[in-house]
């Protein structure tokens, strides 16, 4: 590999790699705002300027590919002065409202100011202010905080495929806004907040809910569709506050769709059933043993069909495969998850970006285990046991007596004989298989809510109740 020198350190690079990336791989940080590895390079913020031997002017590292033998200084007096100067320029009109800003604690502007900025402020003129418009349900705009990096514009144009973010006016009055002030249309709008290096575009969903530094992060995988986008679940005190994309260049790069991003809401939803329930003049909370009795009574001596949500992990599905014949002798098993997507063959890209037609994460894994897709209730079915991870769409049960095992919302199960509460994708470890057969790991981010239990425990309880009979 060719080599160059950065701050006296030898750095190998791939031809075409820019100096920010080359420096990063050599353990040297070059600060930047407008650069984003997933977007075109515009060299606008000027934060990443470095000194390069034999070049008179400072050069932007983002737009400069490394060349063999190049000698780069990121910490020369000139480079450092420019870093401090760009920080000063970016802050003169910034409201410095970090105490009430949701980006605080994870803000590039804040971090770079701390590392590269000056202690003193020389600006005494009036600050520039804007009137903000509403950008729709996903993003809250605060233009006063904007540093005009244009990442959002480029994200829309280049990734979301929609030219909806634009710069209007010019010079000092430049405003980043939407075309004609319209609400955002893309269903990838959450990424606008991710790419924003300041608190200018924040998620309405997360606004004023939690300071970023209190959040504990768990690297996991989205369960929103068969794509298997990598995500990070962020929680505090067992409450999930948000999910963010996690870089995986082979799957989702840096992005996440809104459906996947906001899918987590059912986890903490008040309608979620997280204590055992059964019919007692309507669906009523009870304890595990009573609910188990009701469940067992509902299927006893009947021809049972077991529906297995394709939102379950491989481990859970495997467990079902081995336990169902014992617990429900003669029962037929099918997987279910997305209306219209019966088998893996029906799964296809749902857009040109990330989304898949299968709205569950493990359809392809369940097919690998030999499960067949549910098309119609087998003739003579007298009771149905529905296993669900929290995401799969329960098919029409045609009034057959049902028992739910897993994650359900109250309105879904009003007519069920009993529901034994299980774990959602953020409450358990496990494996899921995406559309291309890639196995990925779900990681437990929060503990089981209420009295809900892992599927393995529920099966054990059921089995021991049978044995004790």
């Amino acid at each position, binding site marked *: 590999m060719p080599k160059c020198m950065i701050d006296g350190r030898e750095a190998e690079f791939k031809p075409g790699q820019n100096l920010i990336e080359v420096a990063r791989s050599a353990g040297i940080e070059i600060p930047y705002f407008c650069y984003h590895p997933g977007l075109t390079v515009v060299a606008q913020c000027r934060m990443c300027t470095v000194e390069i031997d034999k070049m008179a002017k400072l050069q932007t590292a983002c737009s400069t590919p490394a060349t063999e033998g190049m000698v780069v200084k990121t910490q020369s007096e000139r480079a450092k002065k420019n870093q401090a100067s760009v920080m000063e320029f*970016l802050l003169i009109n910034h409201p410095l409202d970090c105490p009430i800003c949701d980006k605080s604690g994870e803000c590039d502007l804040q971090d770079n100011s701390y590392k590269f900025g000056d202690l003193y402020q020389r600006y005494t003129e009036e600050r520039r202010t804007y009137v903000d418009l509403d950008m729709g349900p996903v993003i809250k705009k605060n233009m006063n905080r904007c540093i005009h990096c244009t990442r959002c514009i480029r994200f829309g144009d280049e990734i979301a495929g929609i030219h909806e973010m634009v710069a209007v006016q010019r010079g000092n009055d430049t405003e980043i806004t939407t075309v004609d002030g319209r609400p955002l249309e893309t269903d990838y709008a959450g990424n606008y907040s991710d790419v924003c290096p300041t608190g200018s575009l924040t998620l309405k969903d997360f606004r004023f809910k939690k300071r970023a530094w209190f959040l504990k992060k768990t690297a996991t995988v989205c369960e929103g569709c068969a794509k298997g986008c990598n995500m990070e679940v962020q929680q505090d005190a067992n409450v999930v506050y948000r999910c963010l994309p996690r870089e995986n260049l082979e799957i989702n790069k840096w992005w996440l769709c809104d459906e996947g991003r906001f899918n987590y809401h059912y986890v903490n939803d008040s309608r979620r059933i997280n204590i055992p329930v059964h019919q007692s003049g309507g669906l009523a909370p009870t304890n595990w043993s009573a609910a188990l009795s009701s469940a067992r009574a509902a299927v006893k001596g009947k021809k049972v069909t077991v529906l297995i949500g394709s939102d379950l992990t491989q481990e859970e599905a495997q467990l079902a495969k081995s336990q169902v014949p014992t617990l429900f002798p003669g029962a037929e098993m099918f997987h279910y998850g997305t209306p219209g997507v019966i088998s893996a063959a029906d799964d296809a890209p749902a857009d040109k970006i990330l989304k898949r037609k299968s709205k569950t994460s493990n359809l392809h894994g369940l097919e690998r285990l030999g499960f067949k897709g549910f098309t119609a209730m087998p003739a003579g079915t007298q009771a149905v046991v529905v296993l669900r991870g929290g995401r799969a769409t329960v098919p029409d049960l045609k009034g057959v007596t049902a028992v739910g095992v897993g994650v359900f919302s109250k309105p879904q199960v009003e007519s069920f004989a009993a529901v034994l509460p299980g774990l959602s994708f953020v409450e358990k470890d496990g494996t899921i298989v995406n559309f291309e057969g890639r196995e990925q790991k779900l990681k437990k981010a929060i503990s089981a809510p209420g009295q809900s239990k892992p599927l393995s425990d529920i099966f054990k309880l059921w089995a021991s109740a049978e044995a004790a009979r």
Partner: protein
Amino acid sequence: MSETLYVQHLNEEARPLAYYLSKMDGYTALKKAFTMAPDDITAEVKKSNLRGRGGAGFPTGMKWGFIPKQSPKVKYLVCNADESEPGTFKDRDLMRYTPHLLIEGMVIGGFAIGSSIGYIYIRGEYTREAKLLQIAIDEAYEKGYLGKNILGSGFTFDLTVHRGAGAYICGEETGLLNSLEGKRGEPRVKPPFPAQSGAFGGPTIVNNVETLTNVPFIINKGGEWFAKLGKVEKSGGTRLISISGHVKKPGVYEIAAGAMTVRQLIYDVAGGILNDRKLKAVIPGGSSAPVLTADEIDVIYDIEPLAKVGTMMGSAALMVVSEDYCVVRLIERITKFYAHESCGQCTPCREGCKWMEDVLHRIEHGHGREEDLALLLDIADNINGKTLCALGDAAAGPVTSFVKKFKADFEAHIRGKRCPSA
């Protein structure tokens, strides 16, 4: 006076095609060019020492040489007629009075670089000139100087006038190209330079109006002849100079390149300072050029000599300031212009130009502070050479030079808490 190419024709009579054909050897250079190999045309232009007349002074022949011979993409020749640098109004006269000279220069240029599509990107305010150009283009099409198979050469060249919308930054060549493509008029990151990837992604040459109108002369009389017109090294031909400000006879003048000093231009050519007052300052190359004081005007008026004294010839727009005009007010006004015209893409220019304007405004209006001068110099230093395009330099250079060279005037404002001449 030495030979002039233009000024004798800069009048209403010269406009019609008939005049151009009979009095200016119209389209004879084009006929000659078609007998030459395209590379030989470029070689002739190189030999002529023609340097770009738009501001940067880049050797034109060298620029043409950057165009790849073989290109899978369409090549373009774009005439930069934005003439947005304050103080500059020479290209307006060329387009108004000798439009066919520009058309002929562009067809030759197109032939030399292998481009069959030309655009004239004209300043939005030049409504009359845009119309006159269109009339001339229509005439040229009618007579076969534009369009398919020009003069039986087999060469095709189509020319379109594209009007700008009034932004200074669209005179910057990549800002111009964005605007031409219908995008927001803001400069692009370079490299790639337009010769590799310009208009619509194709190899593109962007030349100033005067640069292109020089081309027919060079082809007709030879690069060597043109080079010899210049009186200083590395600078061929004549220069059209826009003289404005406090002189008795403002206007467009033509001199052999490097034939005169700034002093001669002010006193001998433009008739001296208005009301015979004393000279205070000269901005020699359009408002973006660092200022010269009255003691610094014995410098040869050309690219290299002016660069040596820390300023530039730019678009050859000499702005003369007499002693009774407040230089603080002047630099405030110039800076206001650059702050207004900043495209807003890059941080130092977007934030810094407005900041400088605000500080200068305070000083001019009696609210200056002692530390403001050091602050101004530092802001300017933080902009200069650190922006995406040259607009930052254009804003910073004047501020630095005014503060350094007229420090006493600034201090009088700050200490007296008012503008002494207000």
